[in-house]
């Protein structure tokens, strides 16, 4: 608990982190931006709010994860902490939960800011669709889960890397691949009969190994007030827990073998 508190305290006073957090102020421009869409102010403001939230969480995940893991190791802060009577598992989990707390708080702040800007945008031009706040909240929450999973990858890459670039660029690669995997998989499996059985099997393997970030995407459900099936939320949450458990276990196993010389 003490390590979680210290990590949060250290992060929120960090200049880079403060700059990233200040991106929350961009929510103020969403009603103006939505105004250019003519008749879809409400829908655009919901989409833009969720996209901005996603962008802020992505930056926070990339830089927060790097600051907490890579920089701590590079600047030898870990020497101090690991010399206390705690396990390395405890160290990794404390650092991870510190960032989860920060990501969650930022998601809540973004959601609160979205409520205001969506109300303003909706009042400027009445939409035919109702605003389903539960859908919007679910979309924000799923984004939070998505970036928590991405954070797991940063921890995995930082657990063995001594360079700044490996965790950042490997995580960006995972993020891009994870967002594209569903579309590519569907294309390969449904669209083409020219591919060999082996290629399809390989595509299937890659699809299951990579995280499927598109299953966390509820933006269109929130923007167009489509019904969200509770079953899909439960499936995605279970998928999230299993995948995160695997990534964190691997990170811990690698970190436990690491030398701090």
């Amino acid at each position, binding site marked *: 608990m003490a*390590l979680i508190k210290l990590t949060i*305290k*250290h992060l929120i*006073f960090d200049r880079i982190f403060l700059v990233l957090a200040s991106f929350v102020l961009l929510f103020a421009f969403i009603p103006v931006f939505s105004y250019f869409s003519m008749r879809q102010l409400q829908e655009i403001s919901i989409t833009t709010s969720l996209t901005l939230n996603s962008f802020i969480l992505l930056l926070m995940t990339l830089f927060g994860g790097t600051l907490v893991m890579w920089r701590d190791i590079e600047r*030898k*802060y870990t020497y*101090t902490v*690991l010399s206390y*009577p705690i396990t390395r598992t405890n160290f990794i989990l404390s650092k991870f939960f510190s960032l989860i707390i920060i990501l969650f708080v930022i998601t809540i702040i973004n959601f609160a800011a979205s409520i205001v800007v969506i109300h303003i945008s909706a009042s400027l031009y009445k939409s035919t669709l109702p605003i389903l706040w539960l859908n919007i909240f679910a979309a924000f929450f799923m984004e939070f889960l998505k970036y928590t999973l991405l954070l797991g990858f940063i921890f995995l890459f930082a657990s063995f890397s001594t360079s700044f670039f490996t965790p950042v660029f490997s995580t960006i690669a995972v993020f891009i691949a994870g967002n594209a995997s569903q579309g590519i998989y569907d294309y390969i499996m449904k669209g083409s009969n020219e591919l060999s059985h082996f290629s399809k099997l390989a595509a299937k393997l890659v699809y299951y190994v990579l995280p499927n970030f598109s299953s966390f995407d509820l933006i269109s459900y929130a923007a167009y007030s489509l019904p969200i099936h509770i079953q899909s939320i439960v499936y995605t949450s279970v998928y999230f827990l299993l995948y995160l458990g695997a990534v964190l276990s691997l990170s811990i196993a690698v970190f436990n073998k690491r030398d701090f*010389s």
Partner: protein
Amino acid sequence: MEMIKVDNLHKTFKLKLKTIKALNGMSFDVKRGEILGFLGPNGAGKSTTIKIIMDLVRADSGTAFINSLKSTNPDSRLRVGFMPENPQYYDTITGMDLLKFAASMFSVKDAGKKAHKLLDEFELTEFADVKLRKYSKGMIQRIGFAAALIHDPDILILDEPMGGLDPVGRMIFKNKMKELNKSGVTIFFSSHIIPDIEDICSRVLIVKQGKTIKQFDRVDIQYLTTYGFNIILRKEDEKNLNLNENEISKGLYSIKCKKDELIEKIEAIENSSAKIVDIEPLKKSLEDIFIEILND
């Protein structure tokens, strides 16, 4: 009783294409209540050994124990205070935050009270609420030492604790180490500064190429650093004693001799009319011995 036991540690590091053997059968123990100095040239394996004891580095083979617990067990560090070489702390927190954090990691009660006491002892009270990024190197060393003491440890492990300190800072550290040792704390520290080791250690280990090559206790140090004696004597007549005496003032003479010649010289003086006024040892520094051992 052994507070720390290091048993046949081997460690190899791979740096790009090179393989560096950092430890090559390092073995020693640290007994309760002693101040053990760990002395060796750069690359001798001092820091690697300390990091294995603190479980920051894992040995290829061999084991380190603290209080009979394997060093890979976090509970072994419950009664240990540690300060690494060139300590680095989260620089956005204050000195007081660091002490309170250290206290919470050891579940210390009255953390605030203890932190204030330590800040006072290390002359950092007025910097308690200043962020660590504004501390000088010496102040970082002092706050690091204070953090290592917050839970009243039984064992202190310090890696080059006085490196980079000014003479006043070194004096504060040495006095504090002596005071802690008097109260029963076992201290194990590495240093390059031989006079500091000579001054405070009850035992010294000399390491080279990843293993212990010599160890000395205080009596050994006393013996090895004494290479001869200077006998001061008074004689009334000017008759030569044939002992190579040199007159240092009217009636006072000095005779320099090797360690093994002392008895013989004393007997010769006693058989004459001269009287011994004083016998003082002729010392060489531990540094000279250290260099002689390394050259061997």
